[in-house]
């Protein structure tokens, strides 16, 4: 379609000498470098910003909430009335029983939420919830349930 443009790199008519790029850099380049004070200001902000986030990072177990209430959580969810296949999006195949933490017949983010609350409270944790089979019920199992909930092909 644009053969002549494809050849532009090799077309002698538009081949430029080395001076072209050099002079362009001289003309359009910055007349001075970035002052070190600017570097310091930006990197100082970065240390502040990232340092705050790092102090909240937890490795392994999920953060314990002081106000966590054990056991009883009432769930509700909204169904789309659209008759299309999205009406089935809240449903999952019944084979995914172990991820269905709240035993309502579907796997959604509420199952991950329930599991997270149980793990934080360190009570009422069922060994069946060891989703990844590593012998521990922890954040990785919570992630596994959540990943299942957002899968776009539920049968996969």
């Amino acid at each position, binding site marked *: 379609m644009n053969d002549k443009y*494809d050849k532009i790199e090799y077309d*002698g008519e538009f081949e430029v000498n080395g001076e072209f790029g050099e*002079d362009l850099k001289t003309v*359009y*380049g*910055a007349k001075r470098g*970035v*002052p070190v004070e600017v570097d310091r200001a930006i990197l100082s902000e970065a240390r502040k910003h*990232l340092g705050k986030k790092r102090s909240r990072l937890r490795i392994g177990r999920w953060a314990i909430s002081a106000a966590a209430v054990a056991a009883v959580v009432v769930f509700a969810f909204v169904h789309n009335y659209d008759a299309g296949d999205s009406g089935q999006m809240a449903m999952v195949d019944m084979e995914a029983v172990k991820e269905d933490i709240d035993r309502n017949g579907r796997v959604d983010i509420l199952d991950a939420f329930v599991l997270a609350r149980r793990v934080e409270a360190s009570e009422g944790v069922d060994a069946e919830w060891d989703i990844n089979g590593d012998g521990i019920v922890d954040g990785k199992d919570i992630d596994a349930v959540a990943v299942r909930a957002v899968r776009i092909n539920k049968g996969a």
Partner: protein
Amino acid sequence: MKTDGELIEDINGGDDGAFEVLYHRYRDWVYGLARRFTGSDGEALDVLQETFMYLLKKFPGFVLTAKMTTFLYPVVKNFSITAGKKRRRFKFVSTEAVFSNEEADPENPLDTQRAELRAAIDVLPENQREVVLLRFVDGLSLDEISEVMRVPLSSTKSWLYKGLKKLRGNAGVRKYFLG
């Protein structure tokens, strides 16, 4: 040397050292680009800071889905525009106007040559000028230019071809062309 993706992963984990590496990797490119857009060292430094503050606020949680240059280019461009400077600083530049810059010496033939080059580039249509500068100042490939400008490769090639053709037709810059 860590890739940009690896650095970003580290930064998402709170590693400010990784951010410093990423900053230095792209600082000069961002500054040079901002300088071209704004025409001013001072404004370019403001844009540099705004650009990296914008990037910093993306963490944690930033997911890089394209090259860093592709991500940064529109950010720099938009901050430059909002800095109040027009991209086309001069619709037409006479050599006298450039000589008014204290750094240019009309007695120096090299300065005259560069002034003519500047004048010829500045009157190119915006997209042609941008492609020529991204190609020859920043050293981006045509594919990379397409990506940062977010246009098809055919458009990039077309603009480069037309831009070089116009420059070649300009007596003041004809000397740069071999053909």
